[in-house]
C-alpha cells in the first residue's frame, strides 16, 4: 500500500507544515517566487538538522524564521546585484537558529490565519492563468511539499524540465499580480472548481499509472487524497470537496484489483473484489452518504455515488445498475461531458439490454468531441458482443485498439478481438 501512514516522521511533519510556512512567508514578503525558494531551502535545512539535533520546540516558527532569512538574503543580494555593488555575502551557516523561536504552537491546532494561508496558497497554485500542467506541478511543490526531483520522476520528465515548469508558473503568478488573499465572493465558486480539477488531475495521473514499473507515480494518488483531506478539513461545508475526496477514496480502493500479474488491465466486472480496500470503501461510502444528504449536489458527488454503488456490490452480478443509470441520468443533466453520455449508454445497456445501449450510442456519433475517440468504439464493441453480433464486435474492438494511446488498454482490446475472432 502506498497510502501515507499517519505515524510521525520528520518528512510527514515537514510536508504538513510546508503550505503554512510558505503562506506566512508570502504574507510577509509578498513575493511568491522568492518565498517559495526560501521555504525550499528552509525545508532542506530542517531535513538535515532535525534528525541530528532534535525537533525544535516550534517547528513551524523555526521554518518561517529560516525561510524568511533566506528570502531577505536573496532580496538583498538581488538588489545589490542590481546596484552593481559588491556586498559581502551572509554566512550560509547562519541557518542553525536556536530551536525555540516564535510562539509555541499547539500540535494539531491551527489559527484561523494559518488555515487561511494553506487555502489561499492552494487557490494561488491553481490559478486559472496557469496551464493545468503548471498548476499541477506548482501545487505538488508548494502545497504538497514534494521536491522538484520527486515531481519530475512522477511525471517522467527530466528534472530540469520540471524545474523550468515550476519556475515559469511562479513567474506567471508574479506577473499576473494575483494578490495573496482569498478569492472574492464572486470568484470563489469558479476558483474552487479549478482547485478541485487540479487535485483530480493529480489523482488520475497517479491512478492511471499504477501499471508496470512506475511505482513512484502511484504516490500521486495518495498525495491527491492527502490534499483532498486537508481541503475537506478546511472547508467541511463544501459538498463538492467532500464529493471529490469520496470519489478518490472509492476509486483508489479498487486499485489493487485493476491489474493482473503481468500488468494487464482487468475490467471492473472481472476484478477480484476481495482485493478491494475495504477501509477506503467504508470511509468513502460514509462520506458520500452524509454529503449527499446535506449539501448542494454536484458532479463529483454523483460520480462518487456511482463509484460507491460499484464498490458496495459483492459480485459484479449484484451491481445495482438501475441506480447507476439513474445517477448517470442526473449527471448527464448537470454536465455536458460526452464521456458522461457514453457511460450513461453503458448503464442503459446493462439495465435495458445491449440494443438500448447501442441506440443511445447513435446519438453520440454526431458529437464532434468524441469523433474518433477509442472509447466509443470500445463501448460499441462490448454492446455488440453482448447483443451477439460478434463480427461487428471484433471490428470495433480492433478500431478501438488502433485508436487508444494506452498500452494496457490496447493490449486488452486486441485480446478481446482475438478471443472473439477465434470463436466466430
Amino acid at each position, binding site marked *: 500500500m502506498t497510502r501515507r501512514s499517519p505515524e510521525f516522521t520528520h518528512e510527514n511533519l515537514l510536508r504538513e507544515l510546508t503550505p503554512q510556512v510558505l503562506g506566512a512567508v508570502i504574507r510577509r514578503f509578498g513575493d511568491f517566487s522568492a518565498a517559495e525558494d526560501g521555504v525550499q531551502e528552509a525545508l532542506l535545512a530542517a531535513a538535515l538538522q532535525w534528525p541530528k539535533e532534535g525537533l525544535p520546540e516550534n517547528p513551524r516558527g523555526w521554518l518561517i524564521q529560516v525561510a524568511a532569512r533566506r528570502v531577505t538574503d536573496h532580496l538583498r543580494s538581488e538588489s545589490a546585484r542590481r546596484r552593481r555593488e559588491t556586498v559581502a555575502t551572509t554566512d550560509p551557516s547562519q541557518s542553525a537558529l536556536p530551536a525555540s523561536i516564535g510562539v509555541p504552537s499547539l500540535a494539531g491546532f491551527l489559527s484561523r490565519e494559518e488555515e487561511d494561508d494553506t487555502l489561499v496558497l492552494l487557490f494561488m497554485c491553481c490559478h486559472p492563468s496557469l496551464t*493545468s500542467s503548471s498548476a499541477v506541478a506548482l501545487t505538488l511543490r508548494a502545497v504538497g511539499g514534494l521536491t522538484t526531483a520527486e515531481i519530475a520522476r512522477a511525471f517522467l520528465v527530466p528534472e530540469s524540465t520540471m524545474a*523550468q515548469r515550476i519556475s*515559469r508558473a511562479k513567474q506567471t503568478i508574479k506577473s499576473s499580480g494575483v494578490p495573496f488573499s482569498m478569492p472574492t465572493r464572486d470568484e470563489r465558486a469558479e476558483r474552487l472548481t479549478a482547485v478541485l480539477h487540479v487535485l483530480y488531475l493529480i489523482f488520475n495521473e497517479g491512478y492511471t499509472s499504477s501499471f508496470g514499473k512506475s511505482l513512484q507515480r502511484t504516490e500521486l494518488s495518495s498525495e491527491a487524497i492527502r490534499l483532498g483531506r486537508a481541503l475537506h478539513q478546511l472547508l467541511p461545508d463544501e459538498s463538492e470537496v467532500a464529493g471529490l475526496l469520496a470519489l478518490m477514496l472509492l476509486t483508489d480502493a479498487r486499485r489493487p484489483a485493476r491489474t493482473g500479474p503481468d500488468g494487464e488491465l482487468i475490467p471492473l466486472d472481472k476484478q477480484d473484489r476481495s482485493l478491494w480496500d475495504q477501509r477506503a470503501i467504508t470511509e468513502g461510502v460514509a462520506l458520500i452518504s452524509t454529503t449527499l444528504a446535506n449539501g448542494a449536489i454536484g458532479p463529483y458527488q454523483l460520480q462518487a455515488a456511482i463509484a460507491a454503488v460499484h464498490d458496495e456490490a459483492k459480485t459484479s452480478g449484484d451491481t445495482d445498475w438501475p441506480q447507476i443509470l439513474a445517477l448517470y441520468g442526473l449527471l448527464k443533466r448537470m454536465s455536458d461531458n460526452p464521456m458522461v453520455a457514453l457511460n450513461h449508454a453503458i448503464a442503459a445497456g446493462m439495465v435495458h439490454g445491449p440494443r438500448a445501449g447501442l441506440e443511445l450510442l447513435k446519438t453520440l456519433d454526431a458529437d464532434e468531441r468524441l469523433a474518433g475517440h477509442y472509447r466509443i468504439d470500445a463501448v460499441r464493441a462490448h454492446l455488440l458482443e453482448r447483443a451477439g453480433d460478434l463480427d461487428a464486435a471484433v471490428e470495433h474492438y480492433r478500431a478501438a485498439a488502433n485508436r487508444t494511446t*494506452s498500452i494496457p488498454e490496447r493490449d486488452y482490446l486486441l485480446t478481446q478481438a482475438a478471443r472473439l475472432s477465434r470463436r466466430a
Partner: protein
Amino acid sequence: MKFMLMMNAPSGNGDWGISKWAPEDLKAHIGFMKTFTSGLAESGELVGAEGLAMPAQAKLVRASKDRRPITDGVFPESKEFLAGYWIVDVDSPDRAYQIAAEASAAPGKGGAPLNMPIEVREVMSAPPVEV
C-alpha cells in the same frame, strides 16, 4: 500528454542536401534549431531531443541464421530519413501541432522556411480512470 515530433528530411546525397547551402544559411538553420530547442526547455515542455547522424552513416541491420548481424549497404536516395526528434510533454495535441509547425518553418536555403513535414505521434501512456 507526451508526443514525439519526428523531423523527416529527404536523404539527398546522404546529407539532406544541406551541404549545398550557403554558410550563412547553415548558420541561421543551426541557430534556429538551438533557440527552438532551448525555448522548449525553458517552457518546461521538453522531455528529450536528439539529432541523428546523416544517412550516409546509416545501416540496416538484421540477424542472420546464426544471429550474427548482417548489415545492408547504402539506402535508396529517394528515401526520407529521420533527421532528429523531440519529445515534448504538453497540455493538448494542439500545442504539439503548434510546436511541430514552428520546427517545420526552420530556415533553409536563402533563409526561406523549409516547411518540412514533422511527424507527430502520441507517446503511449497508461489507461484512463474507469468510472
